[in-house]
């Protein structure tokens, strides 16, 4: 089975209205700045828990942040 890819809109949401820095987001969700960078660059797919924390930090539903490309 071909491996799918988890896409995200974290960078757009972060730099949008709120104007959060990577460090601020990292602190809000309990991760390191390097992890936020890796997730934004789609080099690392976060765990479900961290994914939900990030969506909650932006105050948007999960599907608005993540999508799956099979």
């Amino acid at each position, binding site marked *: 089975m071909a491996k799918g890819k988890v896409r995200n809109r974290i960078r757009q949401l972060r730099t949008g209205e709120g104007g959060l820095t990577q*460090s601020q987001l*990292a*602190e809000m969700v*309990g*991760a*390191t700045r*390097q*992890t936020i960078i890796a997730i934004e660059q789609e080099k690392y797919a976060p*765990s479900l828990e961290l994914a939900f924390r990030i969506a909650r930090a932006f105050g948007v539903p999960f599907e608005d942040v993540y999508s799956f490309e099979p």
Partner: protein
Amino acid sequence: MSRSEIRAFGSLIIAGIVVWFIQMRFLDGWQVVDVPASHMLSTYVIATIGMIVGEIVVTAGSTIGETMLNGAAAASASVEDERDQMIARRAELISHWFLIAVVNVLVLQLILQEAYPSPLFTPLAIVSTSGLIFSLLALLFAAHIVKMIATLVLYRL
């Protein structure tokens, strides 16, 4: 550079210095020389203490290093998260398989050189106590070096 990366890099340098020290005490060229027990014990004690002290210094230094590189705000943020733990687990696994592979190669090499002695190949000198201790220490530190290199590479992928 995260604190885990700085720590891995520091630990790699410390392990390299310890391996260099061990080879200096046991090898003459590429050959393991027979050394007295006191020499082996002092090498072992110095290498062990050196590694422990080095790790403590690296752990303390990585905190200061991260503060200098990324600023105080970044250093006070989360120290280690799920990605760091995932990378540590993978690096541990790579090091584990490296150890298994090397031990198997050594075992096969020793069996084959016993069964089919050939003047074409230099036999492994693990039969002496010095050879055995050097091999075990070198293997231990080589596995640690592989783990640290794997950690640094996995952070870059």
